[in-house]
């Protein structure tokens, strides 16, 4: 359901309210991967992420009778998943680091989900934009995001200072945002 036609989504919601399992399955199939990827940005554990997304869909079905017609599936799902992830860290105290993050920096931890762009909608745009920014910035950015290298490791591999890596990656991020500005708003 990339860039889901609002009319199609409206019809699906009306069917869902009426208890149509096929509409439910369509919504599930359209959003499942993107939502697992979204949950992964909080939990970093795949099983937990999938579990949270499945629980959210289960709840969506349980609530189907009380949904409003102008209901936004995407925003409901994103919000509930985010809340579940936050609850998980608050209650289970799985990772001390994350717990601290949530406590002290909740503003950094919580997305305004209304503006979040799903992976399937944004991925291609990012790939294209990466070709348009200075290659050394794109390279450092990829080494961190794709290959998982720390700043220090990137500095060693590229034979530059850590400060240079910091500059390149933050510049890459800034330029990507400029390229994608229209898309993100």
């Amino acid at each position, binding site marked *: 359901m990339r860039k889901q036609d609002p009319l199609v989504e409206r019809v699906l919601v009306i069917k869902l309210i009426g208890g149509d399992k096929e509409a439910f399955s369509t919504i599930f199939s359209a959003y499942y991967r993107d939502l697992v990827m979204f949950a992964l940005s909080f939990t970093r554990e795949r099983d937990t992420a999938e579990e949270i997304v499945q629980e959210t869909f289960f709840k969506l079905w*349980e609530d189907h009778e009380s949904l409003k017609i102008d209901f936004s599936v995407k925003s409901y799902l994103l919000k509930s998943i985010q809340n579940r992830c936050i609850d998980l860290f608050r209650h289970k105290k799985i990772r001390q680091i994350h717990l601290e993050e949530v406590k002290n920096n909740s503003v950094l931890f919580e997305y305004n989900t209304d503006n979040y*762009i799903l992976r399937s909608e944004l991925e291609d745009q990012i790939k294209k934009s990466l070709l348009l920014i200075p290659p050394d910035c794109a390279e450092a950015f990829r080494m961190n995001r794709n290959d998982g290298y720390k700043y220090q490791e990137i500095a060693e591999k590229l034979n530059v200072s850590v400060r240079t890596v910091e500059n390149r990656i933050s510049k890459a991020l800034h330029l990507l945002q400029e390229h994608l500005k229209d898309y993100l708003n």
Partner: protein
Amino acid sequence: MLNNEEADIDLIIAKYLAGETDSEEEATLVSWVESSESNKQYYDQLRNIWEVASSKVNPVTININENLTKVLEKISKRSMSSNFWIYWKRIAAVLLVPLLLGNILWFYISYKKGPASSEPNYNETYAAFGTRTAIKLADGSSVWLNSGSSLKYPDRFKGREREVYLKGEAYFEVESNPVLPFIVKTSSLAVRATGTKFNVSDYTDDMNSSVTLVSGKVFINGPDETATGNPVSELFPSQRLILSKQTGELSIVKEDVNEYISWKDGKLIFRNKPLSYVIKKISQVFNVDIELQGNTLQDYRYRATFEDESLTEILKLLKVSSPIDYIEVKRNPLPDGTFEKKKIIIFPDGSPSY
């Protein structure tokens, strides 16, 4: 060009997202993000890009269908148990059962049905060829299985329907329960009843399946229809519905229903039935292949009642009452040591070929 402050914030955001900030930088970032809505939005956008650009998990490896099935199963399990509750709540509301009585009732039910959380087990009963079997179901309903048929049924009924699966032919006497419809599913149709007596026949090798109603009322649906779907057809007593499995054509006729349910008492009743139908029935009951030679015999009609006669006796009776003769083909051994199905050939009396 970026101005210095912007560049500094970008640097801290990137470092924070990469998990490389110290606490001083984090504090700077938090106050910057909190200072305006547009700062928060900018930070959210960078984070969105940052997360999406990561390929720790390849989305293609996330299995949609498998997990959809998982969630749907969880949903249907849940709805079965909640319907169970709604059902009992309704009864309690209607009868205004006092709390104590309700407790006793509940205790009795849980005692009778076992733990509410466990799922019912399915049994499957077969009636071997040449035999009939009677089954008493958990709800008190009775089922007679005809020769070569099987019935799959739960050891107790849970949820909002009583559902059983039939291959072949069976006669049902269903205990009345208007809120819990009884459903018989075969490969070609589904019969919904509340408290009735009816016969369902759907042998795999038959061209037609049929439902015969003795008393009460039944609704007929396609095999995939749920109990709540609009019925394709309904039957009244003494009516018989015949479904052509090839064309899907339905016909309803009024008949002497005894003819179609007499098998349960060991009787084979034929009322003005062509020989082709008679031998089909006989071959099902006795598990033999009967071949009919010559077109002239096909439509020869019979009126007969057989009760506990053997195959040989039946064939002899057919022979003396009509212009036919028959031979039994010698059975050949099969490679696994068993013998092939008994075969009988029926041909016009006095035919020179035999």
